[in-house]
Structure formats: structure tokens, C-alpha cells
């Protein structure tokens, strides 16, 4: 099949040999598990369990809230000992609402929803099942899978693309998954095809995974329900970005800041496909994922099936600890991974690897001035001018950096990787994007403030008017009462005995005088 070229890209040292031949191993349960309520793109889940509750493996602990959110399940059986804030697996190291679970060691499953025969079930039921299982994109962005599947109702789709490129150096979790569970993956591809109503599926795998390609091709040959193709794509970072993979495989360019669905393509990660298959065929929710542990400073490298919520420290301990203090400890790949702020933080649905990098692997060189060599322009997969954007950001001209495409930057880090002057280009872009978002948030708050003030003033005005009206009414009522009284007295006087009646005018006169 003809492949299409994309601009830019780099060839970092893959370093996949460190872990690619290690079979997936089950990670033993830790003594405490921390399950954050927000492990996905969108709104945090709403907890439905309370402190002290006993939960079983796979039981729903927090429900999806709003249009874009995901349900969270218990990764094992045990007791909930706290629902509070705990350090999140995030570069900031800030706390986040988290459920703390103490496993009871039984690992006892809850009653799972019944298995579905996907090809006899309507797409809505399948999408619901996938949403109930809390499946999110396992490639890193953790976008709820069911939301993506439901895009079928909004746009005409023609192709499903399975992202199995795994272009990040060191990471081999998808590679191992394809080698060991190819049958389930191909079944999952067919399930997604059925759900979104497309006939054609392309699985894009980088050439550096020949065994995975072989395993997948073997399984593809066994089925003829859908037109599934396994396609070798060149080994180049960042091929695994959804939009870039779509362009390589189909030649369709996704517009800036648009979804791939706009060109009729849905992209799912290969590990997500596996999770979808498990949810549909066995009713199993997403409560564990494959994590690669690698880097020269970790004693034992490998790929582990880790229950969601396992602390990073537990995994490091299980792998024999560090050979030497690592220069950098990353969550994710070496190109886009975030520094681990605390090893007490847990593994969440979007974590694909833990890297303990040594001095040789990190190379901290002094920063030199930019000489406008444009290596970064050649490397940028989005066709931007990183050196110019960085210069503008350095001068605090954030808005003008947006004018030349800051918002289209995918933060892949290719520019920083090739820069001969070691300028932290992508760090500038991350700062600028965050700073601009903060400014937008402030502007939004100001607008909201004005609305609230107006609302408040209107309400106060209304209360004031109501008070005045009430006072006027009371005054009127008092006057009316007075008149009525006078009237009654007058009537009484008239109906009274003549003697009294004759004296009545007198009495009135007296009162008038008084």
C-alpha cells in the first residue's frame, strides 16, 4: 500500500531493546492503592462509594459525569480507607481528589455485566458497554473511548485506524501486547469497526516491531468479516501522533485543532482496542494496563500488567530498585514523559512507562545562543518555526507567537531534540501555552464577574422596588381600613335609635372639631 510522507520528524535512539523481549508479567498487589477521580480528559468522575465501604474487583467506585468523562472501577477487592486529596502523577506534584483503597488480598471479582456477542448487538449498546467499562485512550491523552465511538452519529466515517506505531523511545508495552494478545486485538478491531459502521481498518505499526507485525498479520488472515490491513510505517518520531498517522496512512490532512473524525477517520490506540474487546466480550472494566519499566538505572527492566492505582514506588521496588540514583525519573516516554514529582503517586489509565534514566541517557549540555540554523524548522512535524516562536516567547510576546502557530504545536519535543544550541524550545512552548490558558481563564472570570455583578445589582434593584411596592400597598391598606371603619361607624349611626341618630351628627361634629 502506498504511504504518504509527513514533514519533519526525528530519529532518536529507540532503546527498545532494553525491555522488548521481556514478557508481560503480572504486578503483585501493593498494600495501598490510590485511585484518582480524574485519570482522563474531561470532568472528574463522581464517587459513589464512602469511606469504610468494602468493594469488589471491578465494582464501580466513581461514575462518569458530563459529556466527556469516564467511570472508575475498583482495581481489586478491599476496603476504602479514604476519599480525599493525594499527590497526582503529574509534573506539578499537586494533590488531586483520590480514592484510597486497601486491598484485602482476595482479589475477588464483582458480578460483571454479561458478555455481549458484538456482531449481534446494536452499536449504541456496545458504545454504552464501553463507556460503562471506563475505557479511555491508553496511548497517553486518555480521551474517553466511547465519546470517540459516538462521533459516528455526527460525521460520516470511512476508516478505522489503529495506532500501534509506539514511536516513543524505550516504551514497549504496545509491542508486547501485540506479540502476546494479537487475537484479542484483531477481535477488538472488528468490534470497533462494527460499532462505528466502517468496513476498512488500518493498523499502523512502526517497522522496528517485526514480531508484532507478524503476530497481527497471522490473526488478520484468520478473519474475513472486515477489510483489516496491518501496515508497516517508517520508524520515525512522532509517527504515533494520531493526526500524523492518519496522514501517513491515508494522505488526508486533519485541519488544525479539528478531530480526525472530520476527515472520516477514527483513531484508537492498540491497547485501547484490547480494553474494548475485554469490556465487550467479558464485561471486564479497565482496571489494569501494561506499563514498561526501563532505563539504565533500574535493576530489572520489563513490561508489567499493573492494576490502576499502584504507586510508582511499589513498581520500582518490585523491579529491584535503582542501580544508582537516576538523573531523571520519568512517567511516560523519554520524549514526552513528565518528571515524576513523587514516587508515591499512582499509575493511572494513561501511564505507559516508568523510565529511570542515567547520566548517559539525559545529556545536559549548556545552552547557547540561537544561530538560526533552522534545524528545528526541518524537524518540526507540524510545519512551524520553533526558533522564531521561542524568540517571541522569550520576549514575552505570547500573542505574536500564537500568530505564527503556537496553538498548532503538539509539544512533541523534536525541535529541542535537534537543536545544536540546546535551547529548551518545547519548554518555552509548554510555558506559553499554559500562560495563555491562564490568561484566558482570567478573562473568562472577568466576564463572569461582570455578569454576576449585573445579576446582583438587578436583584437588589428588584428587592428595593418590591419593598417600596409593599410599603405603598400597606399604606393603601391602612388608608382603606380607616375609610372602612369610618364608613361602618357612619352606617352604625344611621341604623341606631333616632335619639342616638340625632346625636350622631353631633358626635361627628365633635370628632371633626377634635
Amino acid at each position, binding site marked *: 500500500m502506498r504511504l504518504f510522507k509527513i514533514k519533519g520528524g526525528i530519529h532518536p535512539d529507540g532503546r527498545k531493546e532494553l525491555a522488548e523481549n521481556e514478557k508481560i508479567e503480572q504486578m503483585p498487589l501493593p498494600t495501598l492503592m490510590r485511585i484518582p477521580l*480524574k485519570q482522563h480528559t474531561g470532568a472528574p468522575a463522581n464517587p459513589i462509594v464512602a469511606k469504610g465501604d468494602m468493594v469488589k474487583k471491578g465494582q464501580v467506585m466513581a461514575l462518569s459525569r458530563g459529556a466527556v468523562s469516564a467511570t472508575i472501577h475498583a482495581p481489586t477487592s478491599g476496603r476504602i480507607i479514604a476519599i480525599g486529596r493525594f499527590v*497526582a502523577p*503529574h*509534573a*506539578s506534584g*499537586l494533590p*488531586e481528589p483520590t480514592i484510597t483503597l486497601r486491598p484485602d488480598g482476595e482479589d475477588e471479582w464483582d458480578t460483571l455485566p454479561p458478555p455481549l456477542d458484538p456482531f449481534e448487538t446494536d452499536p449504541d449498546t456496545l458504545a454504552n458497554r464501553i463507556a460503562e467499562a471506563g475505557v479511555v485512550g491508553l496511548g497517553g491523552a486518555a480521551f474517553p473511548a466511547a465519546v470517540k465511538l459516538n462521533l459516528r452519529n455526527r460525521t460520516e466515517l470511512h476508516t478505522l485506524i489503529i495506532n500501534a506505531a509506539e514511536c516513543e523511545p524505550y516504551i514497549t508495552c504496545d509491542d508486547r501486547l501485540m506479540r502476546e494478545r494479537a487475537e484479542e486485538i484483531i477481535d477488538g478491531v472488528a468490534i470497533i469497526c462494527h460499532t462505528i459502521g466502517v468496513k476498512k481498518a488500518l493498523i499502523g505499526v512502526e517497522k522496528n516491531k517485526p514480531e508484532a507485525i507478524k503476530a497481527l498479520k497471522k490473526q488478520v488472515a484468520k478473519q474475513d468479516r472486515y477489510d483489516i490491513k496491518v501496515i508497516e510505517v517508517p520508524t520515525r518520531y512522532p509517527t504515533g501522533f494520531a493526526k500524523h498517522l492518519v496522514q501517513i496512512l491515508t494522505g488526508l490532512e486533519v485541519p488544525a485543532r479539528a478531530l480526525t473524525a472530520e476527515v472520516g477517520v477514527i483513531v484508537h490506540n492498540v491497547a485501547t482496542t484490547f480494553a474494548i474487546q475485554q469490556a465487550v466480550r467479558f464485561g471486564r472494566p479497565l482496571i489494569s494496563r501494561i506499563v514498561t519499566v526501563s532505563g539504565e538505572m533500574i535493576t530489572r527492566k520489563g513490561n508489567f500488567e499493573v492494576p490502576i492505582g499502584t504507586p510508582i514506588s511499589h513498581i520500582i521496588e518490585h523491579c529491584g530498585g535503582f542501580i544508582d540514583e537516576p538523573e531523571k525519573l520519568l512517567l511516560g516516554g523519554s520524549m514526552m514523559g513528565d518528571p515524576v514529582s513523587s514516587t508515591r503517586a499512582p499509575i493511572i489509565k494513561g501511564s505507559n512507562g516508568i523510565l529511570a534514566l542515567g547520566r548517559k541517557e539525559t545529556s545536559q549540555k*549548556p*545552552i*547557547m*545562543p540561537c544561530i538560526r540554523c533552522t534545524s528545528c524548522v526541518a524537524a518540526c512535524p507540524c510545519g512551524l518555526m520553533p526558533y522564531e516562536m521561542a524568540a517571541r*516567547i*522569550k520576549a514575552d510576546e505570547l500573542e505574536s507567537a500564537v500568530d505564527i502557530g503556537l496553538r498548532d504545536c503538539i509539544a512533541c519535543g523534536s525541535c529541542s531534540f535537534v537543536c545544536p544550541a540546546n535551547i*529548551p524550545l518545547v*519548554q*518555552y512552548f*509548554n*510555558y506559553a*501555552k*499554559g*500562560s495563555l*490558558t*491562564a490568561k484566558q*481563564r*482570567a478573562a473568562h*472570570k*472577568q466576564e*463572569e*464577574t*461582570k455578569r*454576576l*455583578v449585573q*445579576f*446582583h445589582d438587578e436583584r437588589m434593584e428588584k428587592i428595593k422596588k418590591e419593598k417600596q411596592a409593599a410599603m405603598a400597598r400597606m399604606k393603601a391598606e391602612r388608608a382603606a381600613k380607616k375609610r372602612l371603619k369610618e364608613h361602618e361607624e357612619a352606617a352604625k349611626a344611621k341604623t341606631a335609635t333616632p335619639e342616638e341618630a340625632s346625636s350622631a351628627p353631633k358626635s361627628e361634629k365633635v370628632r371633626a372639631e377634635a
Partner: protein
Amino acid sequence: MLAAIGALLALGLLIGGGLGLAAYYLRVEGNPIAGEIEDMLPGSNCGQCGFLGCADAANALADHKAEVTLCPPGGRDLATALADKLGVEADLSSMKDTGPMIAFVFEDLCIGCTKCSKRCPTDAIVGASKQIHGVVDDACTGCEKCADVCPTGAIAMRKESTTIQTWHWPKPELALAS
């Protein structure tokens, strides 16, 4: 000679008259920049600047009768933005910027008198009579009106805490090797 004088005179009268008419009919009420400045101000009409609300302050700023550093809730960011807008130098040295502040109610001191919630211009304080009050962080502008009226001193202004949603990477420190 006469023709030239006549022509210039006629031209002068025509243009002068035209300008006079334009000045009369196309007159702009108020300072047009005042509206733009008002949009930049927080809009909570807290009165910490000493003017009657943000619109009044915007008028004073537009007429250069007030300092750009007048707005404590707006902070340094607003002062620089105002200086840019008005084309003046901002003297930020006198301004202590603590970043956005929000009110916080100490629950053991609050007696539920509702004084603060009545004063709050954005309805950011919730709570009823004899109930402990609470602050809706997202709606609070840090105008300090509530802290001023609290009879038990139960309201303090605190720095807005950073969350994962509001955190972002800092600007890279540059150690340029020259």
C-alpha cells in the same frame, strides 16, 4: 492677486465651516477610551480605588486623573496593561502584588450574620442567617468588602491556590552561555 485671495478665502471658509459643522454634529460624548478601559477593569465595583465603581475609575484613568496602579484586585498585570493602553510609564514599585486573592471564612469564628453575603457584589458568599458562610472561589474577585464588614474577623484574604487545572510550566530559566 484678488482672484488668489478670493479663492483662498473661499477655501478657508469652506473647510473651516465644514470642520465646525463636523465638530458640532459628529461630536463624541465622553472619552472613547474610557469604555475600553472599563472592559479591562475587574468590574466588581468594589471601590478600593476610591472611585464610585469601575466605570468612574475608567473615566478618571482616561482623563489621566488617576494612577494606573489604582486597582488592587487587578494587580500588577492590570497596571501594566493599563499603562500600555494609556501610553504612560507605570510605576510598579509602590504596588505590592500578591497575585489574585480570594476570601476565606474561618468556620469557627463565623456567626452567620449574613452581613458579608449581603455586601458581596458577585454573590460569591453562600449561607443563610445563623448558618456558617462559605466562599465560592470561582466567583470571588478579592474585593475585600466582606472582610471589612465581618463583625468577628472571620474572613481573611488568601492567595488563590494552584490546582492541577490551573498549574502550568514556568518560563525556562536561561543560562545563556555566550
